[in-house]
């Protein structure tokens, strides 16, 4: 680590979550310099997915709850924003996103209170059922316009201004994502965050320590749903349209893949995973028309080589670094004659 973790400044910054904000600010400034046109847009999509993946990780990596139906809250967020905008017009985009978050939090809490009677794969399938039911409802409920979707979201204003250009959209979304990530960081560092990790690692022991396991899980689910909905709302704002494709199984699968590829245990892992996934998809679809196969192969390579995700790479390297260093120096001094008192100090050459 380049910065010593022992300095007070660093400790304070970590506690206050300043490094999250600084990181986002740096990203916000750097990307428009290196990327142009379509690529700023792709990066904006990557930021949306990064937030979505971070939200999913609250349930998945932090609390150990596997959910196949995260697209339900993603789509719920998008549709909430679209429906309110369609029926009420002039509501500010930030307020729309906040409402979407609250709606999803309530829905997520209500759902998980009932569904958490099951665990593991059964729970995952219940979340899948939720997503499928919502998808079916888009066709059954007239107000949701079925396959046609709900459009006109480009006219939503954020703090009075429409999102007229790519750059504007980028900065706005990075700002929103930064605030959300900061909130998540504070959660991560809080007692509730520690409780989630305890529940993930061993629910029995956590219960024995007095942690209300069910309550922690419901809260994790609700928070994860809320931020997933914010991400969904942001996607609607970026694309101008919400439609039932926002409730497809592919999205559920992709967000889990983003978390896993990035690494579940590191705070920023899902962000890295989402960015890699979105950019790789963009790159591969430029290369071949039917790029699904290549995306699958890329994921296979990543999962076989780094099962704990890309963020585990430093750890892997650190584990193997001594071995690499030893090879460069030659055979170990231990194999040489150990007897003489004037044994050569470490670092000097030995007989080869």
């Amino acid at each position, binding site marked *: 680590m380049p910065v010593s973790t022992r300095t007070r400044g660093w400790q304070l910054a970590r506690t206050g979550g300043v490094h999250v904000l600084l990181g986002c600010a740096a990203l916000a400034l750097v990307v428009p310099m290196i990327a142009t046109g379509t690529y700023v847009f792709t990066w904006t999509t990557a930021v949306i997915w990064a937030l979505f993946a971070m939200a999913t990780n609250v349930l998945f990596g932090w609390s150990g709850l596997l959910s196949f139906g995260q697209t339900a809250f993603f789509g719920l967020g998008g549709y909430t924003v679209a429906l309110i905008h369609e029926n009420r017009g002039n509501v500010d985009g930030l307020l729309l996103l906040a409402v979407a978050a609250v709606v999803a939090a309530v829905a997520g809490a209500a759902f998980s209170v009932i569904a958490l*009677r099951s*665990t593991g794969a059964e729970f995952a399938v219940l979340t899948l059922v939720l997503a499928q039911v919502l998808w079916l409802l888009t066709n059954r409920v007239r107000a949701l316009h079925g396959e046609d979707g709900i459009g006109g979201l480009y006219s939503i204003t954020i703090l009075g201004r429409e999102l007229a250009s790519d750059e504007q959209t980028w900065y706005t979304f990075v700002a929103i994502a930064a605030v959300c990530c900061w909130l998540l960081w504070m959660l991560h560092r809080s007692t509730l965050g520690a409780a989630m990790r305890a529940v993930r690692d061993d629910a029995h022991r956590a219960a024995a320590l007095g942690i209300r396991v069910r309550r922690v899980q419901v809260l994790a689910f609700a928070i994860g749903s809320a931020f997933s909905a914010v991400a969904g709302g942001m996607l609607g704002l970026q694309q101008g349209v919400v439609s039932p494709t926002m409730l497809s199984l592919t999205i559920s699968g992709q967000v889990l893949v983003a978390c896993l590829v990035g690494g579940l245990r590191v705070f920023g892992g899902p962000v890295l995973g989402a960015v890699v996934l979105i950019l790789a998809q963009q790159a591969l679809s430029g290369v071949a028309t039917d790029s699904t196969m290549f995306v699958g192969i890329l994921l296979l390579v990543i999962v076989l080589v780094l*099962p704990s995700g890309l963020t585990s790479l430093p750890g892997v390297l650190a584990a193997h670094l001594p071995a690499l260093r030893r090879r460069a120096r030659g055979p170990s001094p231990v194999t040489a004659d150990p007897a003489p008192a004037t044994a050569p100090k470490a670092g000097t050459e030995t007989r080869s």
Partner: protein
Amino acid sequence: MNTLLPAVVSGIAQGVPIFVIASGLTLIYGVMHVLNFAHGAFFLVGAYIVTTVLHGNSLGGFVLAALAAGLVVAALGTACEVLVFRRLYRAGSHVGFLGAFALFLAITGATVHIWGHDPRTVQYPAGLDGAVSLNGPRVATYDLAVVGVGVLLAVGLYVLLAHTSVGTRVRALSHDRAMASALGIRASRIGTLVFAIGSFLAGVAGALVTPVTSIDGSLASSYLVPAFVVVIVGGLGSVPGAFVAAVALGVIDSLLFAYVPSLSGFSYYIVVAVILMIRPQGLFGHASRATQIAR
């Protein structure tokens, strides 16, 4: 009363093909604790193999094509297990899921490159293209044949699991992997065998649905979701559970359609929600330690 019997029969006909897919899924989960997402891709490949191999519409040709599909997919599944899953067991079940998803994408993506985009159809095998009348309402002969095949497979699996030494080892492994390995059961070899059998079942299931539907990329996910639901309702790892669940879900769906049509389409989801509320581990599943704490 006139609607009850045909509703039940068509419900069974609807459920049994799902059982064939679900049986492979649940078998693999029981031993390897991997929810094999790639199963949908295996199913699709099985269907495509039939479209390539089948010429004409003789019954014998169809049976051979179905067997070929099963064998090719079994080989594919074995390859996936050896090359991918085996390396991921140590890393935990989540990573297994990621590997399965990656395989799903890779294989379904490959089918487009191999077989193209155009949807395909297959004719009914000769002799099975008519219908049987049950006091008026008709049921397709082919559907009854598929039910027959499904029952045969269920019986075969039961005999395999309960009355052969291989089956005993499989069951031992799914109950307690550590203990079984300690007792000398070759976990990796049995695991590969189970994967091969499960994939064979997926391939045969794909072959069985070819005459009744359009064969294209959407087939992978459209049958996978009901199969997942069946596996969960039946209880993870339980093949008889999958059979009961598949038939029950099919019949309930059918009856709901007949008597409460507005709920049709949601029936599978309603049933799984209700069953899991009453019995969180599914009908025949084992209550895990984690489930106990959740209550």
